């Protein structure tokens, strides 16, 4: 069960960083600081839980609906720059926060999208998601700044995707089992 062990190691590393950061907060801000941070964490947890359940249901349903062959054609390892372009557009159109986006990336990976396209998707979603730009950036920072920032971010997904295809680290999507 190497997959099981790998998941537990992630959990242990995150817990270790959390304990170290928690100890630092205790030293700097005392027990009140720790309680305040835990309160924030609990609030975020309850806040994102409904959206996360919806995002996971969306991801789980899409996996049944989207034919793996079509995706492999659009975003697979052989898809070249066009695949990166498709992934960039899909990322910008993707609404919702990380609780929706990352499970969807996992589904796309299990359905045959290559790492370059997945990374172009993540970068485009994180940087230039239409929803975030329209809801937060334009109202708070003004249209001129938002357009400047958007233009500067536009090529980055393609660059990251193209670079990712050349990085010699082996990766198979978690949960893909023996079928990959």
């Amino acid at each position, binding site marked *: 069960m190497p997959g099981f062990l790998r998941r537990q190691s992630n959990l242990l590393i995150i817990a270790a960083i*959390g304990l170290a950061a928690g100890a630092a907060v205790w030293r700097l*801000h005392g027990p009140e600081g720790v309680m305040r941070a835990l309160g924030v964490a609990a609030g975020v947890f309850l806040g994102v839980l409904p959206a996360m359940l919806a995002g*996971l249901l969306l991801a789980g*349903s899409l996996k049944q*609906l989207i034919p793996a062959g079509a995706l492999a054609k659009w975003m697979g390892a052989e898809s070249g720059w066009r695949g990166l372009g498709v992934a960039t557009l899909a990322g910008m159109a993707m609404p919702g926060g990380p609780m929706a986006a990352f499970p969807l990336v996992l589904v796309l990976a299990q359905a045959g999208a290559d790492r370059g396209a997945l990374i172009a998707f993540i970068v485009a979603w994180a940087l230039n998601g239409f929803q975030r730009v329209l809801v937060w950036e334009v109202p708070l*920072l003004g249209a001129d700044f938002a357009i400047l920032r958007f233009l500067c971010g536009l090529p980055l997904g393609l660059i990251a995707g193209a670079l990712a295809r050349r990085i010699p680290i082996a990766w198979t999507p978690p949960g893909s089992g023996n079928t990959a």
Partner: protein
Amino acid sequence: MTPGQILLFVVALVAFALALRRGVPTAQRALRETGQTIVRVLPLLVVALPMAAFLAELIPPDAAAGWLGPESGLVGIVIASVAGGFIPGGPFVSFPLVLTFIKAGAGGAQMVALITGWAILGFHRVIAWEWPVLGGRFVAIRLAASFALPILAGVLAQLLLPWFPHALIRP
């Protein structure tokens, strides 16, 4: 619930309805898939969220706007790119923070680098979401492919800034 969450729920239910139309076994597979992912992600989330909140407590709220001024040039862009990666939380944290920096005299290119660093590097989001869902190796590949991009965005912004004279003026 926010409008965005409601939209997500509607889209998810439509997708599930489409799966149901393909037949009950398809819908059952979709639900089983959903359940398996929940079981995998939930324990990590319970550990990761307090960790992210502790890190947020440790970051000073008024981290020197002087370092990020228009005259700070490439050094300011690099500082902003890295600092952006350490801004925790969603857009409700980062964009108000950038607004504060702009009012305190930060440069446009540096702020583009800061937002790009927050969006692309966002260590807080990497640890809370990307790592648990996609695994450490994927995170290593993605960060190796994208760590320099916020600096590139800042340099691009520096070049484009003359065409956007109103970029740092509130509407």
